[in-house]
């Protein structure tokens, strides 16, 4: 996937301690890992952090045709156990400090704070030849549904991103999102592709240490979901002196037009680039971008298709809409459209089910100049701090854990309404949700209601519920 030898002594990674690792070193350390552990094409669960060990595992596996499933290190352990049972990975690649939590795991190799642990499974399921990587669709709920990405998908999307963002080896992005999240991963992919230096940090924007690293290592760019931009606004970001910063990208949900405008104005004045983008894990990562030159003029827009891709809109009958300003479902075509989903290990042999066409489930319109605007969503999910959360799955989880109550979910991005019919369990439900999903409690508004309104056939009347709230 990446040709590290081309970039040799370029710094690939700068970690929190300021240690620098060259491309040559990354390649050599990866070869040691593969040769010592005698590992070849198989399935590995990667418990991701923004640390050098995590990155080493990921790039080494992909470069050696070993298929990683990217998961957050802190994924709820019950949910993780269910995923392991379902997919039966050959190995876990995890922080060495966490090895003790997995009895029966046989540590076969350790380096840079990470350990490769052999599970009791060996090639439990055959893998489709072009399958490169698996990512969760809704990681926080432990849904077994994974997106199957091919080598060609990653390569195509990586090259397109490097091109439209005009990346070169002088770039130094600082991480603001986990590696298990497709947007965070795409930043790593595209920068390794051009020989740039990635500043890895586990720190958040709300910590002094983050900004110290930003300044000391002269970060040139960062990406953020809408919530990160709200935080930056709150942090009086516009008053900060960040001479090394060149580019800010935004994806992972629709930024409010006001905030889009505010950041576009700042970028315009400060001589920075602000690039709003749109994507989905199902399209590897990116599908569209709003060129920075248009950021202010077209604020609120998700832009145009990335190089090599094509966007269109279809009406309810499936015919393409050609007139401007008409809302339809957004369709994307391109080489980065992934193979399809897996629901269990047996699906890992499946080939390409989409043929390069993705029906996004997002409703959008296009203006007369060809710029697209997201206006809504077809499916029942919300984005919470950039991550997709399926509302039906949350309802199912709550009802399973609390058999004595009825539950229905609704709300808007970053604020989920969870209606429950047992007031005395309100706090328990909230704790259950934050424990399971790992989201801050502020994301949930647990409301007690007398009953969940349903129609005669038992379907929940969500419109009625939203009136209650």
């Amino acid at each position, binding site marked *: 996937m990446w040709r590290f030898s081309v970039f040799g002594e370029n710094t690939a990674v700068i970690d929190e301690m300021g240690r620098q690792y060259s491309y040559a070193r990354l390649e050599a350390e990866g070869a040691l890992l593969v040769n010592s552990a005698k590992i070849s094409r198989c399935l590995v669960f990667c418990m991701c952090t923004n640390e050098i060990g995590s990155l080493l595992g990921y790039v080494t596996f992909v470069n050696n045709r070993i298929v990683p499933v990217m998961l957050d290190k802190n994924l709820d352990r019950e949910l993780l156990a269910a995923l392991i049972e379902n997919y039966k990975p050959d190995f876990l690649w995890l922080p060495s400090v966490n090895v003790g939590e997995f009895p029966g795991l046989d540590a076969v190799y350790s380096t840079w704070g990470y350990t490769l642990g052999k599970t009791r499974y060996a090639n439990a399921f055959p893998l489709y030849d072009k399958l490169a990587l698996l990512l969760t669709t809704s990681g926080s709920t432990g849904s077994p549904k994974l997106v199957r990405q091919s080598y060609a998908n990653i390569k195509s999307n990586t090259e397109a991103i490097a091109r439209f963002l005009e990346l070169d080896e002088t770039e130094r992005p600082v991480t603001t999102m986990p590696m298990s999240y497709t947007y965070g991963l795409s930043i790593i992919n595209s920068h390794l592709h051009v020989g740039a230096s990635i500043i890895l940090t586990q720190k*958040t*924007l*709300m*910590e*002094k240490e*983050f*900004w110290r690293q930003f300044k000391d290592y002269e970060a040139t760019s960062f990406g953020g979901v809408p*919530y990160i931009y*709200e*935080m930056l606004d*709150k*942090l*009086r*970001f516009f*008053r*900060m002196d960040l001479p090394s910063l060149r580019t800010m990208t935004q994806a992972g949900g629709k930024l409010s037009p006001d905030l889009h405008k505010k950041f576009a104005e700042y970028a315009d004045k400060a001589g920075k680039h602000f690039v709003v983008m749109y994507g989905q894990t199902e399209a590897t990562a990116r599908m569209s971008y709003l060129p920075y030159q248009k950021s202010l003029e077209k604020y609120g827009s998700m832009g145009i298709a990335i190089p090599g891709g094509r966007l269109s809109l279809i009406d309810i009958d499936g015919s393409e809409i050609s007139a401007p300003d008409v809302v339809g479902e957004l369709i994307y075509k391109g080489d980065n459209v992934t193979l399809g989903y897996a629901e269990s290990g047996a699906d890992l042999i499946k080939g390409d089910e989409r043929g390069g066409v993705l029906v996004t489930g997002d409703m959008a319109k296009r203006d007369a100049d060809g710029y697209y605007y997201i206006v809504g969503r077809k499916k029942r999910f919300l984005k919470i*701090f950039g991550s997709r959360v399926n509302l039906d799955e949350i309802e199912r989880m709550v009802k399973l854990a609390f058999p004595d109550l009825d539950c229905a979910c609704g709300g808007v991005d970053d604020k989920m309404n969870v209606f429950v019919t047992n007031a005395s369990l309100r706090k328990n439900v909230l704790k259950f949700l*934050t424990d399971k999903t*790992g*989201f*801050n*409690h*502020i*994301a949930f508004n647990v409301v007690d209601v007398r009953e969940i309104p349903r129609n005669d056939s038992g379907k929940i009347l969500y419109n009625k519920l939203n009136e209650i709230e």
Partner: protein
Amino acid sequence: MSNLDKYKKAFADTFEAEEEQLANLEYQSIPKWDSVGHMALIAALEEAFDIMMDTDDIIDFSSFEKGKEILKKYDVAI
């Protein structure tokens, strides 16, 4: 309500924490005080005391105790 009461209330409301927990609270010492919780806390304090904090003070605001010192700069004695 005294300044201390207002200060405590901002923490208690944001993190749904009990009174006896408050004095020992530090950034990331509980799941609720993560970066998202931090933003909510700052918003609650700014509203309670009608102040606008500087970036450096927001990112320096690392514990219940430390916060008291920081608010002195904004003429809020706790």
